[in-house]
């Protein structure tokens, strides 16, 4: 009989791996992959508060990533500085303040993830939210790619770019908040960027590319989780290392095929 904790862990990592990989392919089309890094760091004070007060890290993470986005948006309106510059101001502040309150163990947990404290409610909640975000991204996917190709053409065809970009941003915030449990605030970007890049190496149309992100996200998360379960290494680094290995294999394949 399969261990219940193992099963719950698998459900969580597969859900998060799928939705992160899917969103990652969209972020790559919008040249926004690197945004995931600073946004992941914005979750750290939220994780710190959740660990200190004893509630689930997802709620702390989602609250702070939303707050961070709002602060950056307000600063942008007030200062007219580029968003990248403002992000570079806000996210080190978020990291610095969170480290003031965390113990060494909690800092490690916040930075690289910890999936040991899961229960049925967390498992079902994560799976349900992942499915909801996945379906939302699927609904807006081609529309957002279209906006990336030509915002003017997309508007003439009746798309509301502001509304769609807002949906994209909210989905990104939710996926990052979901991911911090598995890979920590430090490596959320990798969970999105690497499967997308692997899929890019192997695909020749948009459908294959987007589903490839899902496939490689799931594969990396699942294999990384099994590695963590049976060899007791931290979950976040395990998933990222597997993900990078898959990327390198895809790169090798691409090089060989194009030779």
């Amino acid at each position: 009989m399969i261990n219940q904790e193992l099963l719950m862990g698998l459900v969580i990592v597969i859900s998060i791996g799928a939705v992160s990989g899917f969103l990652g392919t969209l972020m790559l089309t919008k040249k926004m992959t690197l945004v995931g890094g600073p946004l992941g760091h914005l979750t750290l004070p939220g994780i710190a508060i959740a660990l200190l007060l004893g509630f689930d890290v997802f709620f702390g993470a989602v609250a702070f990533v939303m707050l961070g986005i709002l602060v950056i948006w307000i600063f942008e309106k007030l200062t007219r500085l580029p968003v990248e510059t403002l992000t570079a101001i806000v996210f080190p502040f978020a990291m610095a303040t969170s480290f003031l309150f965390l113990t060494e163990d909690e800092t490690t947990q916040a930075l690289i993830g910890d999936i040991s404290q899961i229960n049925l409610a967390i498992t079902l909640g994560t799976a349900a939210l992942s499915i909801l975000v996945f379906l939302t991204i699927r609904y807006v996917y081609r529309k957002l790619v279209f906006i990336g190709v030509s915002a003017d053409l997309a508007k003439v065809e009746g798309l509301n770019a502001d509304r769609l970009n807002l949906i994209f941003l909210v989905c990104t915030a939710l996926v990052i908040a979901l991911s911090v449990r598995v890979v920590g605030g430090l490596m959320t970007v990798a969970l999105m960027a690497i499967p997308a890049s692997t899929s890019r190496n192997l695909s020749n149309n948009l459908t294959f590319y987007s589903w490839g992100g899902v496939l490689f996200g799931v594969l990396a998360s699942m294999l990384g989780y099994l590695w963590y379960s049976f060899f007791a290494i931290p979950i976040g680094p395990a998933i990222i290392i597997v993900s990078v290995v898959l990327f390198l294999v895809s790169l090798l394949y691409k090089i060989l095929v194009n030779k």
Partner: protein
Amino acid sequence: MQRVLEVKDLQVSLSGEKVIRDLSFEVNKRDSLVVLGPNGAGKTTLFKALLGLIPYEGEVKWHTQKISYLPPQELVARTSLFPLTVFDFFDFKKTSSSATKKILKEVGLEASIAKKTVNKLSTGQFQRMIIAWALAGDPDVLLFDEPTSGIDVGGQETIYTLLHKFWEKRGLTILLVTHELNVVWEHASQVLCLNKKGLCYGNPDEVLTPKKLKELYGGGIKFYKHRQ
């Protein structure tokens, strides 16, 4: 004559600077209107205002809903960042694969090109492809902004001949932005000279005088009128 577009006292400002002022004109069904003017005259801005992409003052009244727009090709991303095929591109307009193949053939492209990624098309193929894309869904009106930018002289002639063919065959109304004078003589039923404000509007034979052209482009222009 069925009216397609009415523009009255149009004014457009960008970053506080007035780019178009006091512009009024009308377009009728089956007109081929060429908007002529030097760089920075406000031609692209005019199209964007007509399409509601930027704010404006005055009145823009369309009498049709089926409008298709083609921006300058350098404004359409041909990235290798992700694999966007020609089929994917047509899917943005919900065009079926059979309809895509059919329209590609009509602009002189092989149907097999539909499986190619957009970044692997040559400049000429890409331009034909986006013309086909603009024609998908049977629009009544086409707005083309510099449809031959980045294409060599032979290719330019082919593109304009292609547009002329569709204009005749489908009974389209075409609004075309260019700074190439020969396009007016060969393809326009109406011309609108624009340099921040409207300098002339009407039948090219009547309104496009050497004096008007000097006013439009400055003193250095030579006037050679070619007719077929």
